[in-house]
């Protein structure tokens, strides 16, 4: 047989399946599972021969296909009429995927800003009415800022009483709550407001933990400028 191999690069197993279904003009609700499994495996073979690195998800799909095929071969107990066609395991994600592909196509058809339609240009400076251009803050800038606050802090004479240990989670919650109310917090407001040095350090650690968990983001207006804490992303980000 004469094979004319045209190898499209399929991003994933679903793309490959859709290609095979279209090529064979199959009914997605009645996929001939043996045929498609065979062709799918042939394709994987081809990819192997061509030294294309086959992603694991292609193999998972191969296993799924073979599994469905074997289930189709088993006689179904008559009382189990209700049981779903095993091929639905394939049809359902395919339909959902096709739907999303179409949704993406629809998005593309919209009047796109900077392609079809344009707005006035505003200088970046104007863009952020209240929020100046901000840059992400590195750990070292953050530590510098904290060091500065610690140095400036005048320790009030106080009687050391065993202070109750505040778990860091409480402090994290407190910061998140404050953020929710204020939208953003200045580092220079948050830290000096702490009653003691240990509370200050706790607040700092809470900030780091929140940043690590991606619950907050920490930005700086300009290099060396004020350090701002937001929940999630500020309106305009210059990176």
């Amino acid at each position, binding site marked *: 047989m004469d094979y004319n191999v045209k190898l*499209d690069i399929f991003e994933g197993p679903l793309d490959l399946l859709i290609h095979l279904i*279209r090529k064979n003009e199959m009914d997605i609700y009645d996929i001939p599972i043996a045929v498609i499994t065979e062709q799918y495996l042939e394709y994987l073979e081809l990819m192997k021969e061509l030294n294309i690195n086959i992603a694991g998800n292609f193999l998972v799909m191969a296993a799924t296909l073979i599994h469905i095929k074997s289930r189709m071969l088993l006689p179904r107990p008559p009382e189990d009429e209700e049981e779903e066609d095993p091929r639905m395991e394939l049809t359902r994600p395919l339909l959902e*995927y096709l739907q*999303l592909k179409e949704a993406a196509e629809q*998005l*593309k058809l919209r009047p796109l800003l*900077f*392609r079809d339609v344009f707005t006035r240009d505003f200088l970046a400076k104007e863009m952020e009415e209240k929020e100046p251009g901000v840059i992400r803050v590195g750990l070292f800038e953050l530590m510098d800022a904290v060091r500065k606050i610690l140095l400036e802090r005048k320790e009030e004479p106080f009687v050391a009483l065993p202070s109750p240990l505040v778990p860091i989670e409480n402090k994290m919650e407190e910061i998140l709550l404050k953020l929710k109310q204020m939208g953003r917090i200045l580092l220079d407001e948050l830290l000096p407001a702490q009653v003691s040095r240990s509370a200050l350090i706790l607040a700092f650690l809470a900030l780091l933990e929140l940043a690590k968990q991606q619950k907050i983001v920490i930005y700086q207006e300009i290099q060396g400028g004020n350090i701002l804490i937001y929940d999630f992303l500020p309106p305009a980000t210059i990176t």
Partner: protein
Amino acid sequence: MNEIKPLLEALIFVSPTPLGLKKIMEVVEDSFPKKEIEAALALLIKEYENPERGLYLQEVADGFQFRTKPRFSEWIKRLKKVTPARLSRAALETLAIVAYKQPVTRGEMEHLRGVEVDGIVRTLLEKNLIRIVGRKEIPGRPILYGTTQHFLELFELKNLSALPSLEEIKALNADLSENEADSTIQADE
């Protein structure tokens, strides 16, 4: 003579982002009743529909914004010499997933597309089309993603409910284009 309509035109003209009704109310305070403002906005939109106008007034991202009519896009590109930033098909599909299924985790996106979306998610974040909206309260607390205001502006959507529903989108209409080429969408860099 009522000044509200030309005033709105002026306000929208100078506003760098789509100007929302709430913001308009803040500006005009009690000078004009809300009803009058809404009526004037509707009238203004209608007036700009006139083909004699190069702009149209569009409600986008819960605000009003003047945009150039699509038929002038080629001329404008000559003026602005924009370099196209591309959104690949994969990126656009992933963006569609976020738009329709938000808030959504990366795992859920990967499940729907059958492939990893790690790099794409990062690109979409960088292009400010999606953002982190929280964490899902399941083991591992994965990050949840949603679309941004910029997404609405880029695709000229009034809000998220302006998206055609998935039911409306006939997934299997006769011929889903085989065109797998990258779409060229210019995202604002």
